[in-house]
């Protein structure tokens, strides 16, 4: 199975990095999150309800919709914050949101993580000289993010491969069931920073890579 890969590129000011990443990541996760599954005895299941919240950006003329889950928001914010800190100053970086499935392997082999969709957001950070430029940047970045949201929606509505709905025993191989109010597909967030010399320095979130290497 081929992994679908999509790349989004944005150019933002340093203070806009966080909100721009949140906007795009949350937009993707909104489409890739379901309500909590409740399995019934006959092998059927019912699905909980997903709420949504409008979030206004402070540094960008933009409003995005995210899933109404504080837990999920905290996780995403943490990842974005680490990315932003790593990206300090002007430079380039890339944050990736990967959706994967776990495939159980026999002992002694560990479970495989097979990605089925990867979203890469390339960020180019610029520094602006004056307030007028910043104001223009506010509006421009808002428009660009709007275009990116349309791109995301376009890709998602192609309705290409999605993992099939799992049975109760398999649900943890497809969905992240750790949250109490929503259930996104299993995902991981990684990022790379390109320093000023152009060499790429890989940095991976320790907590999430443990899933891949866990024995």
């Amino acid at each position, binding site marked *: 199975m081929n992994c679908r890969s999509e790349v989004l590129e944005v150019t933002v000011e340093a203070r806009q990095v966080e909100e721009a990443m949140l906007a795009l990541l949350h*937009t993707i996760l*909104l*489409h890739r999150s*379901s*309500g*909590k599954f*409740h399995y019934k005895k006959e092998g059927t299941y*019912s*699905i*909980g*309800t*997903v*709420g*949504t*919240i*409008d979030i*206004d950006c402070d540094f960008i*003329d933009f*409003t*995005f*919709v995210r*899933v*109404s*889950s504080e837990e999920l928001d905290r996780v995403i914010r943490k990842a974005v914050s680490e990315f932003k800190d790593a990206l300090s100053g002007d430079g380039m970086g890339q944050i990736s949101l990967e959706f994967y499935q776990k495939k159980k392997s026999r002992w002694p082999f560990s479970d495989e993580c097979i990605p089925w969709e990867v979203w890469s957001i390339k960020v180019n950070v610029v520094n602006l000289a004056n307030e007028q430029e910043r104001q223009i940047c506010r509006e421009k970045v808002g428009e660009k993010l*709007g275009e990116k*949201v*349309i791109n*995301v*929606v*376009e890709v*998602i*509505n192609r*309705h290409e491969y999605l993992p099939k*709905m799992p049975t109760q025993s398999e649900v943890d191989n497809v969905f992240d069931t750790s949250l*109490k*109010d*929503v259930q996104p597909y299993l995902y991981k967030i990684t990022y790379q920073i390109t320093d000023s010399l152009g060499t790429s320095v890989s940095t991976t979130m320790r907590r999430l890579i443990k899933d891949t290497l866990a024995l």
Partner: protein
Amino acid sequence: MDSGLSPQDKKDLDKFIKFFALKTVQVIVQARLGEKICTRSSSSPTGSDWFNLAIKDIPEVTHEAKKALAGQLPGIGRSMCVEISLKTSEGDSMELETWCLEMNEKCDKDIKVSYTVYNRLSVLLKSLLAITRVTPAYKLSRKQGHDYVILYRIYFGEVQLNGLGEGFQTVRVGVVGTPVGTVTLTCAYRTNLAFMSNRQFERSAPIMGIIVDHFVDPPCGGQRPANMGHPCNYRATDEDDGGQYAGCQDSQEVCTTSFSTSPPSQLYASRLSYHPPALAGAAELCHPAANQVLHAGKEHGGVVSGPAQPPHGADAQLTAENAANTPGSSGDDAGLMHSGERRKRRDEGRRSLSPADPVESLNAFTRKIGAFVNKPSTPITAASLDLPFAAFAPRGLDTEDNDPMVQPPDSPPCPSPLQASLHSQGSEGSGQQDDFVMVDFRPAFSKDDLLPMDLGTFYREFQNPPQLASLSLHISSQSMADDLDSLPEKLAVYEKNIDEFDAFVDMLQ
């Protein structure tokens, strides 16, 4: 094309499409309310949240949608459209976007209705939630209020995009294939908003082509309502419509748009804070004698915008009569009182009688004490202070007991002392109601019992203060000499304590 579709699946599919259409309308209209939307996730399925999304139902919107659908479903050649338009306070309107839910002939026979179609419709609704915040109309709707409102109109049938102007853009929200056709959701939005900014400042009549031909009767019949559309704000249902909403799901009230006008008291307060000197009546309202603010119940009665206002004129006219009738004030500072009286007498003869009707309207006025004001322990009459209009201040009316503003007199027709507090000083050449008066405006909270002078006098007097003693040359040079002399002694002391300083520096590092 129903071949291959079981009756149950067909029934489910119809239900899905119907509720999808209703939820689509809800999402679009709610996104144009001007408020941020927030709904809660629920891990336990409630059974009433279609497509596993928490989308509230505004009954009025559901009603309109059902009325437009009239029992039909979106199908091939039958599209459900939601038109969003903008209407200015002057009555001009402009179509901003049209959302179309259409069905085409491309069928996906193999798709499972109850799982795949349902889930894909759910994803499409999420996409709609995201896209409705991205089109230009969203920002406009968030700022609606005074100048314009956002309206919606639902119609069924052929899509009409003529009103979107030239160069409109289209964005496709998504598609879902079903065994009976492919559901497509798109949005066409206007890009040329310059039309609106130009028209806002035109005073000419609106172009009839826009208004009259703007909305065409839907081909499916039914009388289109004469109004432009429905405002994108939720109001409680009218009694007439109450019965019709019985079949809708329970809804929760959604925030109304901020169609705010300043309440009259606020408007009035803002006027009171600034009084151009030329306004005759206004001058009295900022009468600083007791730092009292006159708060008018009526907007027009208290603050006059021009000299020709009858109530104001009546005030001025009736004042003189009253001044002649009221007894002399007790007075404190004799000198001040004299000047006040002189001014009064000079002007009182100029006034003429006027009808008593405006007087009654003035009875509505009340008087408030300004903040941080100490009520004078002794009754200070306005005339006793050196005030610009002391001559016209009410005599014997400075205490609340006698204050006609607080206790209006019983007989309005007779020249009551009420209007005395509202008159103004006439200028030298004035004699009629349209006088312009130069007012010595006293700043708020100014204490006039200590230094009876106005701001101008104060400024002139203290404009050239004497130089500070420490800045004078001979003193500074003297201190410099002293410093130089004491230097050796200071150095000796510092050298003696050198160890202490070193220890301090080490501590800092």
